[in-house]
Structures are given as C-alpha cells and as structure tokens.
C-alpha cells in the first residue's frame, strides 16, 4: 500500500488536472480520478514495473476513456455549457470567476493541447518529459506549448499572466 500511495501522490495532480480540463465539474473529476486510481491499484502488479513515462501514458489513457464513457452515459454537451455553471464550485465569487475563465480558455484549445497544458502547468513537467509521456518529439511539444502559452496569456490576462516579450 505504501508503494501505491507514493505512486498516487506523484500522479494525482496530473490525473485530476486532466479530468478537470475535460470540462468535468469538481465532483465528476474526483470520481474519475478515484476510478482511474482504483483501476491502477488493481493492476498495480504490472503497472509498478513500467517506466514512469509508460505509467503516465496508462493513466492518461484510462482517464480519457473513463471520461468518454461518463459523457456518453450522461449525454451532456461539453464545454461552455450548464455543466460549468451547474457545478458546485464552493469557492468565493472571485474563485468562481477564475474557474470559469480557466475552463473557457481551455475549451478553446484542441483536446491534445489541453493535455499538454495540464502536463506543463498542473503537473509542471518539462517539454522533454511531456514528449516522452506522449511519444512526441520535444521540439513539437515546445512549439505547441508556445502557441498555447500565447493564447492562455491573452485569454487570462486579467488574472496576471501577460504575454511574453
């Protein structure tokens, strides 16, 4: 259990961030995260022997598939919808505005770019690590991240991140 807990603490931000970036409300994202790690726990015998990049890829695939299944079951429209407004944020009005702006900004990205953004800014991975996890060249990751950074800085300017000079 200790080994799994170490694994969990290393990966939970990535998994939760990905679930949230897929326009899941906080409760749904927590459910998805739990279900992902429950499956990981059941398969931990095999998973623990994998390289970290392969473990991350497994987790990302699992959360992606579970999210798709959940959406099919609920038949709810994806982003910019009542899902965002209806989700119980529970924070202050300012936090709620920040949350909506962040979700709106992420909605403008392609799905693949959303994953890049979560890996970079939530999990704080560098371009090489992201490239390894996704099986893409580091240069490609850097270029796509630069594009995302520009868009996010513009979109979220009121919260502080100005565009790079």
């Amino acid at each position, binding site marked *: *259990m200790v080994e799994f*807990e170490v694994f*969990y*603490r290393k990966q*939970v*931000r990535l998994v*939760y*961030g990905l679930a*949230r*970036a897929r326009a899941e409300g*906080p409760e749904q*994202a*927590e459910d998805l*995260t*739990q279900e992902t*790690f*429950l499956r990981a*726990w059941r398969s931990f015998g095999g998973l623990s022997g994998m390289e970290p990049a392969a473990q991350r890829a497994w987790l990302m695939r699992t959360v992606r598939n579970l999210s798709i299944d959940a959406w099919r079951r609920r038949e709810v429209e994806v982003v910019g919808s009542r899902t965002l407004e209806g989700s119980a*944020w529970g*924070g202050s009005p300012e*936090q709620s505005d*920040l*949350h909506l*702006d*962040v*979700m709106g900004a992420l909605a403008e990205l392609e799905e693949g770019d959303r994953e890049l*953004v*979560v890996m*970079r*800014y*939530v999990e*704080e991975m560098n371009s090489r690590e992201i490239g390894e996890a996704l099986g893409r060249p580091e240069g490609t990751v850097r270029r796509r991240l630069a594009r995302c*950074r520009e868009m*996010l*800085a513009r979109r*979220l300017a009121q*919260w*502080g*991140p*100005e*565009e*790079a*000079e």
Partner: protein
Amino acid sequence: MEEREVDGRLTEVLQKGLGVTREREETMWGELAARRALEMAAWSAFVGAIVRMTRNLRPAMQACAWPGPFYRE
C-alpha cells in the same frame, strides 16, 4: 514579461482555476483507500463464503451420494 514569469503565473492561475489543491488530494486519497479496503474486504468475504460452502457441501454430498442415472438395484 519574460517567458519564465509568464509560465510561473500561468501555473498559479491554472492550478487555482482547476482546483488542484493539497486538501483535495488528501480527501481523494482517504476516499480511495476506504473504497479499496471495502473492495478487498468484500472479495475476502466472498472467497471465504465459497470456501465454507464447499467445505460444508462435501459431507452432505457424500451422505446422500447418488450412484448415477444408470444404476439398477
């Protein structure tokens, strides 16, 4: 603003905006561990029940042993 500063600020804004907090991680861990413990307990109970049933069934089966459909006295 330098790229590194932009990255730092975006990290802060996105983590806050997505609700990625230590508190949430701890809560989720607690619930996950509880759920897994329940799962293991349920599985143990199920396996235990099967073993007991098999153990109890054997003498009963032997006591009323049926010689087979083609047996003629």
